[in-house]
C-alpha cells in the first residue's frame, strides 16, 4: 500500500489518508509530515528541480528500508516540484502502522532521508534575484542518527 509521487500539483492530505488508512482495521496509528514554504526574509518563491528516475528510485529504496526497520502497513510520499510560493505545501510523508512509535519513527526517518539523499534542489527568489539553497549541516546530522 505504498505510493510515491513527484508532481507539480498540490495534494489533499485528507484524501491521501483515506487511501492509506481507510477501509481497513489493522491501522492503529497514522503520522503525517507536511513541509510548507516559509516566507522568511522576503522570500518570493522557491523553485524545486529534481532528477527524474533517480528520485523515485531513491525514495522507494528508503521506503523499503523503513519497512525493514518498523512494522508499517503503508507509506505515502508526495513531493512537489516547480515554483511554490510562501505557505504552499512542498512535501507529504505519511506512515501507517499498528503502533504509534513505529509510525512516528518511520516518518522522521523518511523525512531525514528525503532532506539529504533524494535528488531535489531548491532555488530561492527574493525580489528579483535568484540563488540556490545550500544544504544544511543540521540535516546531515539528523540523518546520521539512523546509521
Amino acid at each position, binding site marked *: 500500500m505504498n505510493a510515491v509521487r513527484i508532481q507539480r500539483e498540490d495534494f489533499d492530505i485528507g484524501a491521501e489518508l483515506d487511501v492509506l488508512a481507510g477501509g481497513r482495521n489493522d491501522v492503529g496509528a497514522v503520522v503525517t509530515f507536511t*513541509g510548507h514554504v516559509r516566507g522568511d526574509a522576503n522570500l518570493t518563491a522557491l523553485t*524545486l*528541480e*529534481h*532528477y527524474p*528516475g*533517480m528520485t523515485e*528510485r*531513491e525514495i522507494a529504496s528508503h521506503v523499503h528500508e523503513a519497512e525493514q526497520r518498523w512494522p508499517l502497513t503503508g507509506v505515502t510520499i508526495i*513531493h512537489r516540484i516547480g515554483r511554490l510560493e510562501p505557505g504552499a505545501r*512542498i*512535501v507529504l510523508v505519511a506512515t501507517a502502522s499498528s503502533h504509534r512509535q513505529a509510525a512516528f519513527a518511520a516518518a522522521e526517518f523518511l*523525512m531525514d532521508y*528525503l*532532506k*539529504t*539523499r*533524494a*535528488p*531535489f*534542489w*531548491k*532555488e530561492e527568489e527574493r525580489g528579483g534575484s535568484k540563488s*540556490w*539553497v*545550500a*544544504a*544544511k549541516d543540521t*540535516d546531515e546530522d539528523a540523518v546520521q542518527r539512523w546509521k
Partner: protein
Amino acid sequence: MTLLYFAWVRQKVGTSEEQIDLPAGVVTVGDLIAHLKSRGGGYADAFADPARLRVAVDQEHVSFDAPVDSADEVAFFPPVTGG
C-alpha cells in the same frame, strides 16, 4: 554515456544533458571530473571545486573513486535540498 547536470551545475555548464564517449584513461568519477574541468569555460567553473559536487552513477549516489567506465548515466549536482 549520458551526462546529466542539475541545479547550479547545470547552469554553469549551460546544458542539462549531453552524450559523450569516455576518453581513454577515464576510469573513475574523479577522472571524469578532471576531464570535464579541462574543457574550460563553464565546465572549468562548474568543476573547479569538486568538494562542492555530488555524483550519481546509474542513479546511485557514489564517491569520487567509483568506476564510471561501464556506466550508462552519470549525473553531477550540488548537495540535495529537498523536503
